[in-house]
């Protein structure tokens, strides 16, 4: 019974949203949107609370008496001062901390990936594809030189070529995007036809 109800509810919401494209903006669609916003907003909090906050407080603070952990809790709660105008600036303190930690990890952890991508481009020029690959990498990097004027012939050539490589790559991205989007529609139609209407074989 509950499985059937679930299928019908899912079907209702799926169709409610399709009314937007096949008909026009309407209240049924906006109701579906409202449900989506409400459920996901609540779910994010429920998950953070049950899977992270509650166990950490129970283990670290209550069980192991690590009272230092109260500091980050206060830090996190400071964010809420932004809703109280006179003390809103207090919310900058945790922001400062996060931005600082974030910047530090960019500086210490990004070089590893960066360098390995550089060394991965060290290809021997003994195959046509390797040559094209290396030329592509360099031309696109040159395309993004912003303070070198594009006047000399090599610069003109490199930037034109770089742009061409970028465009071919964007073509691939476009096709992949189409593919993903179609897959989404496909998934919903599979649901409607197989699980709900049972027209197609599962």
């Amino acid at each position, binding site marked *: 019974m509950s499985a059937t109800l679930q299928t019908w509810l899912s079907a209702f919401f799926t169709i409610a949203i399709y009314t937007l494209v096949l008909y026009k903006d309407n209240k049924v669609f906006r109701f579906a949107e409202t449900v989506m916003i409400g459920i996901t907003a609540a779910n994010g909090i429920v998950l953070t609370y049950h899977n992270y906050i509650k166990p950490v407080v129970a283990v670290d603070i209550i069980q192991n008496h690590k009272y230092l952990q109260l500091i980050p809790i206060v830090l996190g709660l400071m964010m809420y001062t932004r809703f109280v105008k006179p003390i809103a600036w207090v919310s900058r303190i945790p922001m400062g901390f996060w931005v600082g930690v974030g910047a530090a990890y960019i500086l210490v952890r990004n070089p590893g990936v960066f360098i390995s991508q550089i060394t991965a481009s060290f290809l021997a020029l003994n195959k046509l594809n390797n040559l094209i690959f290396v030329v592509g990498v360099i031309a696109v990097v040159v395309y993004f030189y912003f303070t070198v004027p594009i006047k000399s012939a090599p610069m003109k050539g490199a930037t034109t070529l770089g742009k061409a490589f970028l465009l071919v790559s964007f073509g691939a991205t476009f096709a992949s995007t189409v593919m993903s989007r179609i897959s989404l529609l*496909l998934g919903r139609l599979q649901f409607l036809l197989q699980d709900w209407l049972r027209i197609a074989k599962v």
Partner: protein
Amino acid sequence: MNIWKRLSDLDRRYYYVVLILVVALPIIKPWGLPIRVGSTTDDFHKTVEAVPDGGTIALAIDYRSDCIVELNPQVTTLFRQAFAKNVKIIMWSNVDEGANVTEPITRAVGQEMGKTYGVDWVNLGYKPGGEVTMKKMVDNFWEGAAYVDMQGTRLEDLPIMQGFNSLRDADLLIDMMAVVPSPAQNYLKMVSIPYGLPMAIGTTAIQAPTEMPFYSSGEYKGMLAGLRGAAEYEFLTKNPGPAMMGMDAQSAAHLLVILLIAMGNIGHLMDRKKRAGAPTGGGS
């Protein structure tokens, strides 16, 4: 309005209906076109196969309900491949909904294959904190995972977690992801590269081109790209499922898109020719 103009200016509802039909018909009656397996999927399959018997895969689930169509079949098939050869899976999510969307599908595979939750696999739920949490899971996994699984069961009560104190204890790290900025690239820089843990990913078709450089440099040991990747993976593991069944509809829709691009352009060109010389500004 001449015919060419009309060709490039059809009401959208016409081709929306055509699109629905074109995708729906092959679902009802598949054509059975052959699927060729690409190297990214092949490598993914081999990498999972290389995990020793009794080994552990650490699996990060970083997608939401919007991308279940492409990623759920990838996860399901991964579970089947791992369980077929007694490999354990410890999974969690760095994205809030991730744990919810995989919970029902993984449970179904576990039950079907006679595996026990907490012994053969575990879902630790959502762990906030992004890349800093990823690093914490290397330094001290239990602390990074906040000591509990998704249901709030203490990790000490789960047999699978005994002796698993760091991500380095895993044999393979897999990130199934579909959010921006890429959590897989974060795992690469926070975990895989500094600590030498092999890593593979599954992602959507959209994000595949952006992730390709890391596969081609050998940092991702394998990659499943979109529903096509899932279909190839189902094919390789001999578990035909929704992804393989969807490939014909995918083909049909791609043809429709190409047809529409051609129609739009031909109509536009001919219309311009007909009104020869008329200046065209931007934004036709």
